[in-house]
């Protein structure tokens, strides 16, 4: 008994020493994030976790971050926020006060990013996030939040532009959106853009987040003769909407969704019914940008797929960009002072990343646009702006997919 106690005591001493040893052995910059490992947001949350890890490994392999001639390694500290905003905000506070992280990385989803960004501002620690695009994050005058997803209101702009180029040009459009922060921004933006481009918005409706029954909305859109239907929601809702459109035999010329088409779950769940569905994204694997961490988009896609066994999507790329911006900003600032880093991030100019060149607007959100995707033969392809894959428009009837 005595020996066991002695052993435990020694072991714990050793452990403490081991930890303090690694902590002091090299200079580290701690990046912290409270993100969803479990719960409803965990599927997409995982994409960010994978990306953050992948990019941080790459930075460290390259020798780390050079601060005034001294090399620092990035170290990630994660907590599971269980997909709950209040829990997430609490954990961000813990990251700052207990774990003493230097800088913050964002969680996933706009609803969770909002409270987190407020904590970041309270402690004046910069946060770069790739998981929230709602204008509600950026219109509060918060100087410490930076986002790598483009304005939610612009998500469907490219799709609408694509529609104006079709012959015959559709007239009637239905817009449906979930009532969470992000999708409300998408829906409102889409309506404004559609009207500006001369479309007739015949159905414009909000539904409660997590709704499973769209039969009423679909019946309405069908009845109003909407030629194109745009839905801003989440994976489950997107699957429901497609399934029920088929059940009710509603086949618009274009069915465009925000979240869904670029996710593997969506394609797996719907099988061949997923074909020809349109999507939007801030990034696609068909793009080619030179990056300073990874050579270019194609090299990144290959390396990433080899390591994780799935194709990266725009969430992944937005996460990579967050780390790239930190490395660049810290090196330019030549300091670890949060205030100086914040200013350096704001001054980021044309930074070359595999996600595309990064510049931020005054409110902290990236200057970017979205591309139109379409599922062709079970693969997500960029169809507008042209990338070598021809869009199939109008979408064929359900029986011919």
């Amino acid at each position: 008994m005595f020996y066991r106690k002695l052993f435990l005591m020694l072991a714990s001493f050793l452990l403490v020493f081991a930890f303090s040893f690694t902590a002091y052995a090299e200079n580290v910059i701690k990046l912290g994030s409270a993100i969803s490992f479990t719960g409803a947001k965990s599927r997409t949350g995982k994409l960010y976790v994978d990306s953050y890890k992948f990019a941080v490994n790459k930075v460290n392999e390259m020798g780390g971050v050079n601060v005034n001639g001294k090399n620092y390694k990035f170290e990630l500290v994660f907590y599971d926020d269980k997909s709950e905003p209040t829990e997430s905000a609490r954990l961000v506070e813990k990251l700052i006060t207990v774990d003493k992280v230097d800088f913050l990385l964002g969680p996933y989803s706009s609803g969770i990013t909002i409270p987190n960004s407020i904590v970041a501002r309270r402690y004046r620690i910069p946060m770069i996030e790739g998981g929230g695009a709602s204008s509600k994050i950026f219109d509060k005058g918060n100087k410490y939040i930076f986002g790598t997803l483009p304005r939610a209101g612009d998500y469907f702009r490219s799709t609408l532009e694509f529609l104006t180029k079709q012959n015959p040009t559709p007239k009637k459009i239905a817009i449906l959106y979930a009532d969470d922060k992000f999708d409300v921004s998408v829906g409102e933006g889409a309506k404004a853009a559609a009207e500006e481009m001369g479309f007739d918005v015949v159905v414009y409706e909000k539904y409660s987040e997590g709704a499973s029954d769209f039969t009423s909305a679909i019946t309405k859109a069908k009845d109003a003769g909407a030629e194109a239907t745009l839905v801003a929601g989440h994976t489950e809702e997107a699957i429901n909407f497609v399934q029920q459109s088929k059940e009710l035999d509603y086949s618009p010329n274009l069915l465009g969704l925000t979240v869904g088409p670029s996710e593997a779950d969506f394609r797996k769940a719907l099988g061949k019914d997923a074909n020809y569905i349109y999507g939007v994204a801030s990034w696609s694997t068909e793009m080619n940008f030179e990056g300073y961490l990874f050579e270019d988009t194609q090299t990144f896609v290959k390396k990433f797929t080899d390591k994780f066994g799935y194709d990266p999507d725009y969430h992944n790329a937005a996460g990579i960009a967050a780390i790239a911006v930190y490395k660049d900003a810290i090196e330019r600032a030549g300091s670890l002072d949060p205030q100086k880093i914040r200013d350096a991030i704001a001054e980021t100019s044309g930074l070359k990343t595999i996600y595309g060149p990064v510049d931020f607007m005054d409110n902290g959100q990236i200057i970017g646009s979205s591309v139109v995707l379409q599922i062709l033969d079970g693969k997500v392809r960029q169809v507008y702006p042209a990338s070598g894959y021809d869009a199939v428009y109008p979408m064929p009837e359900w029986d011919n997919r």
Partner: protein
Amino acid sequence: MLTQILINGILKGGLYALMAMGMSLIWGVMNIINIAHGSFIMLGAYTTYWFFTLYGMDPFVSVLLSMALIFFLGFFIQKYIINFVIGASLFITLLLAFGIEILINNLALLFWTADVRSVQVTYGGANIEILGAVIPTVRLFAFLLAIAVSVILFIIMNKTWLGRAIRSTAQDLEAARLNGVNVGKIYSITFGIGTAVAAAAGTLWAVIFPISPTMGGHLTLKSFVVTIIGGLGTMMGPLVGGLSLGIVESLGTNWFGSTFENLISFTILVLVLIFKPNGILGKKE
């Protein structure tokens, strides 16, 4: 268009009815508000998914297996867990059911991850067109199955010894005991039947909607509303409650917009509680 909206509502209502049936039974007999009800629906949906994905079994066949499996799960949960606190206040059983819900959901998240899955039957998107209205085939099947299960349950409750034992236990515990009813066992069987019916609802849910481990909470709420609207203590209650809710929701979301679906459900709930506190079919106490 109105016919279409009504058809949508009736078909949805059938599913609501089946969902609520198990909850209503357990509540009526044991006075337990089974917060974990939605989790059992989720388990039913997942067993269906696995039977379909691993063995290629048609959901309308495997529904019997799912029901049997979940019956035993429910039976043992009641026998070894809930029966110990059955005499305690409503609050204790509520808390316990809440715990069971958290446990089941998190185990499901652990083993099956949060991935959204769906059962892709070949007749998935098929539909029949009658007088300009489209009737989705799977929903029609689901509706018919819901009716069938209700009828079977009705027969069991009214024509068999077991049913009479369950009803007598619900009416007068002491008298049932005096007449040789093993109350503990009846409770376990009732809970088992309740969860088995929930599993059947889960099967239908999986055929119509995508499923995920966290789908249950929302369904518990819907079942709760349907149970209250229909009224406790009668087998027809959930059917009436489900159909009314389905139709009103369909009409309501059509007139006022989809975002008000929950507002509509709960407004009906409040109205029923004010004007018919025991539900549409509920008996006076």
